[in-house]
């Protein structure tokens, strides 16, 4: 019966109140903006509602022509169509029926303007709430809501402006609930509030303060801060306490007004009334927290600490006062507030801490703890003791109180105890460690809040000594806990295991256990991390692959586990089949069985695309590790060449090509992976740490820089160089802070200045001028790599062009005479730095060459510094050295490139 769509509120067919107004041609289509074609109406049906029409035209019968049906709503700030409808709506009463979520009719009420305003006013403020409380928006009538709120807001403003307390009371309540600073309307209140702050009735003043303290915007606060400050000095305690909180709000909104309230704070603490004291402490706390200057001022000039101590002492000693007593304790709220302020004052300040030590001890021992209030005070006291610079005896007392809390029957107390232990675990680790078993017991609590805290605390308590026991508990917890804990718990276990793992095998076992129990909750980087860990522990390969094989046998649900397993089977499949596991009873597996598993991973519909990729690559790798199943592998790979998964298809096609075109390269390409470096290693500094034996315990668990690394190509040279005991893990990219890292290393060697050394004079018989960590570290070991024969080799200038000069200095290794170590030094005599400097070198095939990373990529201007880089040349046949070098760099904004050949090597360098 109505039009198809309401333009104003976009309801699908027609919104109820627009449909009513469509009835009237002219008036409404202009005012409300209703579309014309929707004007099917009562009129069309031939029965025009006389009364309604009259009302809508603003001429109700009872009022005479032109009269408004109601006193007129203040319509400023309301959009024109809305205003129109507001006016027109006025005298018509109707019902709004709102449905609540469960479908029942939640409330039926009246929006009546001008009908019975008394009734309206009474319900006004409560309506605001009530409309919010019901699921009004579910009805989809946003338009109605905004209309309704605009109306209510304006009504509130009108009420506030009234002279009567009753009106003001509702008006202010409504304003607090309905208005906020995002609506400009609220500024209309400023003047009213200003007047009311100077009103003769304290309750009106109180209302104004309360409203300002609740919803005052920064403009309002600026305008009214003076009034608030005046009220802060009155003798009326009812106003004073409200003014103090209002001042807090003003400071929060406009911090620069803080100074203004400073004089008023002087006498606040001499007040007898506890309400005022309480709010004053809140104000002082806010000021101290906001500004360090204020904090210092209150500490030094105002002597705040002794004042607070005095108040606190009075509270404890005063005995029973019925006025402030809460279950036997005198005003616990005030005590808690004061303790909080003391905490802020005593933090990092010896004098203040000293002054409050005694009172804290008194509170800690004298407070009666049979009730919650007592515990609340005790808890605050403990926090304060922990935060300030208190005596050690007091700290022990505090931790013991927390320990007692942990055994308390009340869950709330246990919760706060765990929370505060978590805060103190960093500073008083050993003291907290004593309560470990209690904390671990809390993991079994039914309460999720306590569980979470206990879990966090348990991870904080894990160390090298208790790792095995703690992990057992935590793994058990991981098994049984709610899903929301699993992700956090798993990553916590990974971290702890990495830090404190007692052995490789334990570490691998732990991670595998996590993957089997909570595989779907672990973070994405868990898989590469575990793979890296496995590759690094060479002796564990056979054991690991066997364990993983067993773990995924028949269960492909835990994707991360399947991925790791697939990778390991691909990599170490030969070990699995040969059954040479030493750690565990070896299992007998045939090659076909292994392939069966991987193939079923490929076809399983639980496998994700990534997992399939892992499986396919694993199968491919096995083609070089297995002897008699190559044909089967070929077949599998060719099948997936037509997979609908693009990623998988591409892999398969590439592998197929490997079988057909590049079969000669296949075994080399699919060789066992070299040891992976951890992505997050921070270069030489870490090597210094691990090698400097500062932390002997974690040495094992870090990606080891030492150890045999069979397939790394770069290491072949080094194997020749110095046997297996050389540490070849070198970041080959330019290090981020080369000079400082080098400096640290050199500090270890003794203060040898390296970085600033001029390039010109090669220092014979001194320590070679190189910045590469490995050499220096080798230098640390008992067996020096280079000897004095280097002394006799003269240096050469290999390149000098465009201001760039490169010099070569030589050393010979005394362990392997066929290795020549050339240190290049590049210097720049122009007036501009050369950036992105890259030095590359090539030698004839009879030589082998290793280029280590440069000390920097910038050659500073005016010969003020040099780049050093080390080249190692293996020359087994002792032929004459020849080298071609390529230089690229940016200079004066353009990219430069140059090639040169170096033939003038001195004979000592290669003979």
């Amino acid at each position: 019966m109505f039009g198809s769509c309401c333009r104003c509120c976009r309801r699908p067919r027609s919104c109820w109140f627009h449909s009513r107004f469509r009835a009237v041609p002219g008036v409404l289509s202009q005012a409300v903006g209703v579309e014309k074609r929707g004007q099917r109406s009562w009129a069309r049906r031939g029965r025009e509602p006389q009364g309604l029409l009259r009302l809508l035209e603003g001429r109700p019968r009872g009022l005479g022509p032109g009269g408004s049906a109601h006193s007129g709503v203040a319509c400023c700030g309301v959009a024109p169509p809305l205003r129109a409808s507001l006016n027109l709506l006025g005298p018509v009463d109707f019902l709004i029926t709102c449905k609540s979520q469960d479908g029942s009719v939640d409330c039926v009420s009246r929006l009546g303007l001008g009908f019975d305003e008394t009734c309206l006013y009474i319900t006004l403020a409560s309506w605001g709430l009530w409309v919010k409380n019901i699921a009004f928006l579910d009805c989809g009538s946003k338009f109605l809501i905004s209309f309704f709120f605009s109306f209510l807001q304006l009504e509130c403003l009108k009420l506030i402006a009234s002279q009567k307390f009753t009106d003001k009371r509702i008006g202010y309540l409504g304003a607090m609930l309905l208005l906020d600073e995002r609506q400009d309307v609220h500024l209309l209140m400023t003047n009213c509030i200003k007047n009311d702050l100077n009103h003769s009735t304290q309750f009106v003043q109180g209302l104004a303060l309360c409203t300002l303290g609740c919803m005052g915007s920064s403009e309002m606060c600026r305008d009214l801060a003076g009034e608030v400050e005046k009220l802060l000095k009155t003798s009326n305690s009812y106003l004073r306490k409200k003014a103090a909180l209002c001042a807090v709000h003003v400071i929060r909104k406009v911090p620069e007004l803080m100074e203004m309230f400073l004089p008023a704070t002087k006498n606040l603490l001499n007040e007898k009334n506890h309400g005022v004291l309480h709010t004053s402490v809140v104000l002082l706390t806010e000021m101290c927290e906001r500004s360090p200057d204020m904090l210092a001022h209150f500490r030094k000039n105002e002597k705040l600490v002794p004042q607070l101590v005095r108040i606190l002492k009075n509270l404890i000693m005063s005995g029973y006062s019925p006025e402030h007593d809460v279950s036997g304790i005198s005003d616990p709220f005030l005590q808690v507030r004061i303790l909080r302020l003391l905490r802020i004052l005593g933090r990092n300040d010896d004098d203040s801490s000293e002054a409050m030590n005694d009172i804290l001890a008194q509170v800690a021992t004298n407070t009666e703890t049979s009730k919650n209030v007592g515990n609340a005070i005790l808890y605050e006291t403990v926090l304060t003791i922990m935060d300030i610079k208190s005596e050690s005896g007091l700290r022990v007392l505090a931790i013991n109180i927390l320990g007692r809390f942990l055994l308390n029957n009340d869950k709330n107390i246990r919760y706060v105890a765990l929370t505060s232990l978590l805060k103190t675990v960093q500073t008083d680790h050993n003291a907290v460690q004593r309560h470990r078993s209690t904390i671990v017991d809390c993991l079994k609590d039914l309460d999720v809040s306590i569980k979470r805290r206990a879990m966090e605390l348990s991870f904080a308590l894990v160390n090298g000594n208790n790792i095995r026991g703690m992990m057992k508990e935590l793994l058990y917890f991981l098994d049984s806990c709610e899903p929301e804990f699993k992700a956090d718990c798993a990553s916590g276990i990974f971290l702890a295991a990495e830090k404190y793992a007692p052995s490789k095998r334990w570490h691998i076992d732990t991670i595998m256990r996590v993957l089997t129990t909570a595989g779907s909750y672990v973070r994405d980087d868990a898989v590469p991390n575990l793979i890296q860990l496995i590759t690094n522990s060479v002796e564990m390969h056979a054991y690991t692959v066997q364990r993983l094989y067993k773990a995924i046998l028949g269960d492909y649900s835990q994707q991360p586990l399947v991925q790791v397993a697939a990778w390991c089977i691909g990599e170490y499949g030969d070990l699995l089949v040969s059954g040479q596991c030493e750690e565990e009873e070896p299992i007998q597996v045939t090659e076909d069985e292994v392939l069966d598993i991987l193939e079923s991973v490929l076809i399983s519909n639980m496998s994700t695309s990534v997992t399939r990729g892992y499986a396919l690559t694993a199968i491919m790798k096995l083609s070089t590790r297995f002897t008699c199943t190559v044909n089967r592998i070929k077949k599998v790979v060719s099948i997936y060449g037509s997979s609908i998964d693009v990623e998988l298809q591409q892999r398969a096609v590439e592998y197929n090509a490997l079988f057909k075109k590049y079969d000669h390269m296949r075994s080399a390409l699919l060789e066992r992976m070299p040891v992976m470096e951890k992505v997050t290693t921070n270069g030489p500094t870490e090597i210094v740490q691990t090698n400097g034996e500062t932390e002997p315990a974690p040495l094992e668990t870090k990606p080891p820089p030492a150890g045999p690394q069979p397939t790394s190509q770069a290491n072949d040279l080094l194997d020749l160089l110095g046997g297996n005991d050389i540490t070849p893990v070198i970041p080959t990219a330019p290090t981020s802070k080369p000079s400082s890292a080098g400096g640290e290393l050199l500090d270890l060697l003794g203060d040898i200045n390296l970085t600033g050394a001029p390039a010109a004079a090669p220092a014979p018989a001194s320590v070679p001028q190189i910045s590469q960590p490995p050499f220096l570290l080798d230098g640390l070991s008992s067996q020096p790599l280079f000897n004095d024969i280097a002394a006799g080799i003269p240096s050469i200038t290999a390149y000098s062009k465009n201001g760039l000069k490169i010099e070569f200095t030589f050393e010979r290794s005394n362990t392997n005479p066929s290795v020549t170590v050339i240190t290049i030094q590049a210097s720049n005599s122009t007036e501009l730095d050369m950036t992105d400097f890259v030095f590359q070198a090539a030698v004839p095939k009879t030589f082998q060459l290793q280029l280590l990373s440069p000390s920097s990529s910038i050659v500073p201007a005016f010969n003020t510094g040099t780049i050093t880089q080390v080249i190692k040349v293996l020359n087994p046949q002792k032929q004459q050295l020849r080298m071609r070098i390529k230089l690229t760099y940016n200079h004066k904004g353009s990219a430069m490139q140059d090639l040169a050949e170096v033939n003038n090597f001195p004979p000592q360098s290669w003979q």
Partner: protein
Amino acid sequence: MIQAILVFNNHGKPRLVRFYQRFPEEIQQQIVRETFHLVLKRDDNICNFLEGGSLIGGSDYKLIYRHYATLYFVFCVDSSESELGILDLIQVFVETLDKCFENVCELDLIFHMDKCNCWVIDEASRRKKREAQRHQQVHYILQEVVMGGMVLETNMNEIVAQIEAQNRLEKSEGGLSAAPARAVSAVKNINLPEIPRNINIGDLNIKVPNLSQFV
């Protein structure tokens, strides 16, 4: 700072909602709903602190609640408030309400505004007025306990005394400003021959009043 004070009954119907930080209405609704579901899951014998309300604040915020017979009182606070202290504050608030309304067990009824249809101006309507007034009273009491998210007064006697003094003042003024009587007469004279009695559009149900009731 106290971020929000929510009171709802065992069925999740909000009875008192007071936010000290601005949230859009929809978010407020969601917060109430989410809080209710979080709190409902918890037994009475586990602790009264709860983290993890995703809508208010974040990790710094905690929900601290107490459950009384049919009502949940939930305070959402940040770390500048003492957890155990807030628990006591809830107790003070409830005891104050108890003092002001004779029996706190009826609190649920006090808040129960939507029970009666106010359309007919009769006994039911008057009851509704009374209840609305009481609802406001709860707000006024809260205003004397917490102001702008900060604790104002914890002394029960003081709170009750102030509330009573204000109510006396209100009484002496003789109620709200009188309504203009002319509007009433205007409505009396409306003659609406045909307005649809019931309009059902989507999920919104509109009842059009039978105006003859006022005449």
